């Protein structure tokens, strides 16, 4: 195709000045999904009946947790007070620290963002982090004060916080009740008047940002893009600038509420999708730049990062016979989640399973829950691990994500672990308790400032290893649920790390090994052996439970032998009751892993993961 032929813009509908691309930034539960629903309802993109489930969160799990895991986008029209019909693209963002990179890419696809602030709670850490990210991306931010229908709403406080903490005017911020649909039109008008239309020239070479994708069994990968420059149309050969992969476009279109709406082309400023019979989602990484193979743009969009798993854990089927099912399930999830890594792993204790890599702890929990729910699998997971950087004698630098491979102390020259900078916003009353928590988790205090008289923002440097277990739970329980957390990776630091091995009946159970800072090894070891003692049912023989570092036992407990387990009475010939009890016992055994002559229940493996529960 010659350049001369590419005198495009023939689509009479296309008018870049009438496009508004925006996203919604909010803390969990501050009403993001509800506001999105109301907007879609108001603009007739959906009928109220269809909103029965919140539109933008497609997954059951997301709704339950009130979080959005994968970004979605929706296109709809709005007839504004100025008499013009606008093309709106609402780009949803994932709302959790694990997905910070995805959020940043989604924001790059927008010119503006609605910042929802709960009038009853004010600004939270996550809102703040995402708001800063939006500001960094030069987005126009429209504060929206939500939940004004609640008696405890304090609109002035919320506005003041927006101005003082984020530093943007909030004087004429729309005050809404997403729940009751109050003042929704104000928000829509604000989008028209305050958010700038996209810039871009449809006649220059194609430059489009990939901000999400999913696998469709019929079309292959459906790639969500924001066209920044140029135009993409059916039959174009496109190139993914980072992966280098090339594809022939089969379909392009916009994302309407319930389906993909085909269009012949997408032009600069527009948000939509394309398909190209792409088999693997790994070819369409979020943040990559799409251009034309025969007329490429000169520079890819900045800011591309390969998604890198930070947290690793072994996942095993509770019933070893279901290894194949687990494999299929992981493969299916991977189709839509390129950041989920997995490779086969064998454990002496747990048999065949997979070493899986996740973006973070939430990502891990979500995957585990989906495996259990959607694929009906019963899982045993091992303690999560981060990637350690070790300098091993005579071997040099190695990276280790599995405690099993961690060498004994005398082989290690130096060890380093990943560190994050954590930002915690909490009501002032819990500052002491949270500082204690951070201290306990080897945190290094950076600073603290009071956001207002009642709330503080704390910054700590924390080893990632310390927050992947249950830091978030502990934070919530210490703050009655009010503290919020955000973190970013800031690199590796040397640390005195040791591998703690757990021996049951004298043998190391590989799946229970984990890495710990040497100062905390003893306390952790004590708790683990106690927890195991309580969670391993008594058996015919006494079972020693020990914790060791490099062959040296540092803690020991004993699971006493079962003394009595007998059904003596047989009332009125009631054999059935006896049988049922034994069947229950037998059923329980199925959930156990036989290790040597010892049976270890699934619960024991899980219990050591939740060490810090009171």
């Amino acid at each position, binding site marked *: 195709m010659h350049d001369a032929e590419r005198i495009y813009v023939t689509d009479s509908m296309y008018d870049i000045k009438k496009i508004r691309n925006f996203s919604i930034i909010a803390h969990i539960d501050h009403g993001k999904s509800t506001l999105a629903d109301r907007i879609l309802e108001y603009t007739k993109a959906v009928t109220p009946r269809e909103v029965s489930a919140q539109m933008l969160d497609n997954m059951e799990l997301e709704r339950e947790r009130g979080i959005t895991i994968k970004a979605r986008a929706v296109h709809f029209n709005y007839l504004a007070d100025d008499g013009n019909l606008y093309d709106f693209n609402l780009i949803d963002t994932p709302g959790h620290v694990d997905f910070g990179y995805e959020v940043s890419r989604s924001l790059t696809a927008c010119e503006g963002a609605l910042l929802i602030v709960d009038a009853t709670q004010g600004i939270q850490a996550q809102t703040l982090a995402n708001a800063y990210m939006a500001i960094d991306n030069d987005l126009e931010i429209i504060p929206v004060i939500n939940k004004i229908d609640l008696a405890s709403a304090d609109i002035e406080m919320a506005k003041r916080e927006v101005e003082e903490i984020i530093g943007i005017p909030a004087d004429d911020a729309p005050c809404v009740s997403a729940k009751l649909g109050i003042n929704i039109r104000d928000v829509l008008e604000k989008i028209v008047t305050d958010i700038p239309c996209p810039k871009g020239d449809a006649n220059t070479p194609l430059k489009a940002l990939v901000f999400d994708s999913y696998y469709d069994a019929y079309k292959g990968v459906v790639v969500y893009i924001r066209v920044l420059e140029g135009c993409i149309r059916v039959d174009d050969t496109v190139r993914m600038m980072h992966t280098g992969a090339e594809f022939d476009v089969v379909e392009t279109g916009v994302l309407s509420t319930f389906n993909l709406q085909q269009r012949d082309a997408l032009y600069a400023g527009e948000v939509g999708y394309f398909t190209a019979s792409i088999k693997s989602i790994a070819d369409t990484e979020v943040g990559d730049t799409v251009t034309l193979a025969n007329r490429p743009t000169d520079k890819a969009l900045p800011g591309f990062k390969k998604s890198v798993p930070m947290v690793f854990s072994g996942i095993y089927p509770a019933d070893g016979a279901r290894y194949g099912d687990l494999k299929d399930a992981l493969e299916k999830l991977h189709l839509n989640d390129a950041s989920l890594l997995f490779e086969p792993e064998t454990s002496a204790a747990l048999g065949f399973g997979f070493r899986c890599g996740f973006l973070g702890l939430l990502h891990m929990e979500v995957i585990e829950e989906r495996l259990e729910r959607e694929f009906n699998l019963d899982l045993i997971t091992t303690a999560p691990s981060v990637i350690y950087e070790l300098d091993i004698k005579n071997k040099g630098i190695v990276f280790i994500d599995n405690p099993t491979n961690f060498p004994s102390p005398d082989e290690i020259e130096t060890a380093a672990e990943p560190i994050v900078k954590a930002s915690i916003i909490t009501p002032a009353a819990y500052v002491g308790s949270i500082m204690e928590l951070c201290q306990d988790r080897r945190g290094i205090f950076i600073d603290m400032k009071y956001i207002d008289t009642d709330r503080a923002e704390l910054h700590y440097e924390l080893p990632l290893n310390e927050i992947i277990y249950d830091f978030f739970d502990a934070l919530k329980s210490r703050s009655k649920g009010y503290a919020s957390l955000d973190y970013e990776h800031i690199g590796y630091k040397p640390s005195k790390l040791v591998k703690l091995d757990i021996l049951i009946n004298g043998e190391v159970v590989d799946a229970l090994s984990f890495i710990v800072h040497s100062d905390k090894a003893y306390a952790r070891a004590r708790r683990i052996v106690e927890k195991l003692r309580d969670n391993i049912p008594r058996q*015919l023989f006494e079972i020693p439970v020990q914790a060791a570092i490099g062959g040296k036992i540092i803690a020991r407990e004993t699971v006493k032998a079962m003394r009595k*387990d007998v*059904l003596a009475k047989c*009332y*009125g*010939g009631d*054999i059935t009751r*006896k*049988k049922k009890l034994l069947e229950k016992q037998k059923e329980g055994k199925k959930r156990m892993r036989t290790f040597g002559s010892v049976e270890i229940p699934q619960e024991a493996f899980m219990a050591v993961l939740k060490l810090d529960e009171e």
Partner: protein
Amino acid sequence: MKNNLSVYVHIPFCVRKCNYCAFYSLPLCDERVMRDYTEALIRQINSIKTERPVTSVYFGGGTPPVLGVGALISVLEAIKAGFRLSDDCEITLEANPESVSLPDLKDYRNAGFNRISMGMQSSNDRELAILGRRYDLSRYKSAVRAVIDAGFENRSTDIIFGIPEQTIESLEKSVMTAVDSGTPHISAYSLSIEKNTPFYNNRDTLILPDEDTEEEMYYLLCDILKKHDYSHYEISSFAREGFQSRHNLHYWDCGEYIGFGTAAHSYCKGKRFSNIADVNEYISLSTGDYFSPTDFHVQRYLSDTDKREEAIMLGLRTDRGIRADDELLAKSKKYIDGGFAKIENGRFILTEKGYRVSNIIIAALI
């Protein structure tokens, strides 16, 4: 399959429920309910027709004598009329020391009852009070006298160990009291705290023997009884030569039986079922179609797997054990090495140590 049947009759009434009892029973009801219940029992008995020989009949409860000597005998008469009782049929009556008198016992004996199972539980008055039993040692002794005088040679005595506040010494006395009474059969149960019992509800206040003591009690009891010629022929049963409970052995042999009365269980034609556990419902159902022979409340039709598993579960309760095939031998080495089981004459049999933890072993083998 063995052709002979056993018959169980359940009398759910007690003067007062004991503190450890979780079984379906009622405190003493008024005369009318007991009369209606007797009639209902007889109606259910009359609804069954079979030519299969009956080798044991067991009246259990509850406290069967509470129904009254006349009523119990009329129920036994109905059984005799409707079933072919073998000449040596074992006919057991469960009783408590306070529920029997010499004249009544003579009547029972004359009516055909030939075995009395009496719950002594303990010879220590304090322990009896804790258990909620309504008699003391002297009452028990005179009851034993009456049972012997009425001509019952075949007697069984229940003992409980692990009673709150029980000591090794008091258990030893209880065992010796039973032995001295000349009873040829003893059932010894370790106290278990079942849900929905006063013991369970007050479990935090109970001073139970610790597990070392409880275990010592078990072995002591086994030793004493062995020394006095009782064989430990079943998990909780000890008998002198010729006095094993035919009725219970029939259960452990996977024999079939019919249960009459509320909450009674049956095993017949490969099905296990139970009657409704509510006296009034039972009575009212007995006037309808409920008792047509096919219309029991079916609990479970036993598959071949069920039968095989039950044979293991029940067989391992006795000193006859189960046949030791290669598969079993492969699985059971650790139990034999650990002293929990032994192989004798090609059979896999639990030891005294094994009986104590039989659930674990059975669950591993089924």
